[in-house]
């Protein structure tokens, strides 16, 4: 899931302030928490109320989209919706915002979200944690299915660093030590010998800006 948080309303109001007719587009794709039709309506209600207090009047239309990052889908579904629209406010991640910009170049597209990372939601605690850095060189097969790049604070490929205290990281005592998690997991799987394997420094060239399918 792509983890996003809502932008402060003040900031959004500033972004849209030069415009009047605004299309709010939710995204039913991978944004987490879901930013679908409800969030689009909620945002429109909040912005209308906020606008009123600032003597600004907006006309909003709210729709949602299955996944804004698909340029073909985005173009075909949004084109018929933009009559009279002066600006688009997107509830998608940064990828969605950029895709809309690409397929609707005549319209300004603004983000209503801050995009953080690829992660998962711990529902009970309502916490979202980063799980994957998209490094392009997946090590999970060698580390018991736990990513050292994101889960180790220092992103060490050859842990453990020696700064681990009671299973927590020395840099942040609230945070689990990723390498302890890897150790425990490998122990469960009877694969502790994997820890002895040396993992060479990452080849940052692999993390290209473009790949072909």
């Amino acid at each position, binding site marked *: 899931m792509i983890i996003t948080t809502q932008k402060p*309303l003040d900031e959004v109001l500033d972004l849209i302030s030069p415009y009047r007719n605004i299309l709010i587009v939710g995204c039913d794709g991978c944004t987490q928490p879901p930013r*679908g039709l409800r969030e689009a309506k909620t945002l429109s*209600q*909040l912005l209308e*109320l906020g606008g009123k207090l600032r003597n600004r009047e907006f006309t909003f239309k709210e729709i949602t989209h*299955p996944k804004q990052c698909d340029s073909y889908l985005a173009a075909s579904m949004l084109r018929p919706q933009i009559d009279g629209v002066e600006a688009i406010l997107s509830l998608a991640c940064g990828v969605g915002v950029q895709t809309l910009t690409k397929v609707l170049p005549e319209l300004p597209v603004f983000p209503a979200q801050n995009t953080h990372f690829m992660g998962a939601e711990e529902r009970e605690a309502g916490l979202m944690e980063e799980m994957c850095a998209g490094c392009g060189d997946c090590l999970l097969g060698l580390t018991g299915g736990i990513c050292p790049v994101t889960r180790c604070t220092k992103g060490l490929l050859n842990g453990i660093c020696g700064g681990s205290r009671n299973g927590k990281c020395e840099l942040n005592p609230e945070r689990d030590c990723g390498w302890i998690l890897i150790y425990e997991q490998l122990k469960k799987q009877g694969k502790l010998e994997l820890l002895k394997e040396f993992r060479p420094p990452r080849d940052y060239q692999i993390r290209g800006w473009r790949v072909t399918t």
Partner: protein
Amino acid sequence: MNEQIIEDRVAVEVNEDHCSSCCICSTLCPYEALNKHPETGKIFLEIEKCQVCGLCYSACPAKAIDTIYYDIDSLIRYLTRAKQEYESDELVIMCKGSAPDFSGIGKLFGVTKFIPLSVPCIGRVPEEVFLKALLMGIKRIHVLACDEDYCRFQRGSPVTRRRILALNLLFGQLGYGTEVITLNRNSLKVKVDRDLCIACGNCVYYCPYNAAKLDSPGAVSFDLSACKGCGLCVAMCPALALDMENWERESISNLLAELSSGMKLPKILVFRCQWAVFSPLDNGELAPNIRSIDLPCASRVDTFHILEAFQKGIDGILIASCSEEDCKQEGASKNAQHSVTALKERLGQIGLQDRLHFCTVSPRYPERFNRELEQFSQKIETISLKESK
């Protein structure tokens, strides 16, 4: 805090002098709040456990239990007045938990004109009320109770079945026929629009009854026999794909518009869980600037409606919920508190945070809700005054 509890009037009381120690109440009480005192042999009530279902009141043969809600006198007073107002000799007694709107009720019983009597749980209505109704000239009594496994007070609905069976037999013996009272059952449940569903799984996670299932290839379906109609999934659905029978998004919006247009300033709207606040029968107790909308559970409270109310010019919104412990829906109400807190945070960004307030109350202490409402009203009045200056 303790002193406060002692001061507050309570909704149910046992009069030891009248108690015959028969223990019918304690066998009926779904919450084990009534027990025999080991020394006096009399029944005593642990008010903190009481959920004010009223079963004990309706069943006590010695009239040793008093309640301030829907007692015999006020029910009879209401019937006398309502019989004239509605000009009918057919009475419909319905449980708030499962009653659709009045036109729905009419369809259910095949009646067009009737005297409505809406109560939280039919199990709290004593035999005496049925008898008095007949004496008043009411010819037929239709009872709409919840399905037995849907009853918010667990035993209220089963007790109703037995009570009506006995009453009809009795009426038969008296010569009124054996079908004076007809019993219908109903439940109000979730509705899903699978075309709108985005298969996010929120409802599967939140449903306290495991009624929601995500099918492949990707739309939710509900096991309606498991759904208990709290409405939490509806309030949490990010795609607006779910709705709740009788508490449809649109019907609440319509009610909201209707109420807000007729209110005095400053307008205060209360969303109340119908199990957290019991309203008096005539519902005339609210000041002209205050109106309320009952919900099946506080968890049905929808951020959409809160914001819509503000848009319609409501000055303050109070949410009255049961505490998590008292919640009749497996603690679903705690989620309402989370949603309201999150919304309040966002309202804070545009300076409206003080206009929304969430409180937990119980009908066992009627004054606490009144106090919450009074304090909130004063706050909203102060804010309104400041702004008008």
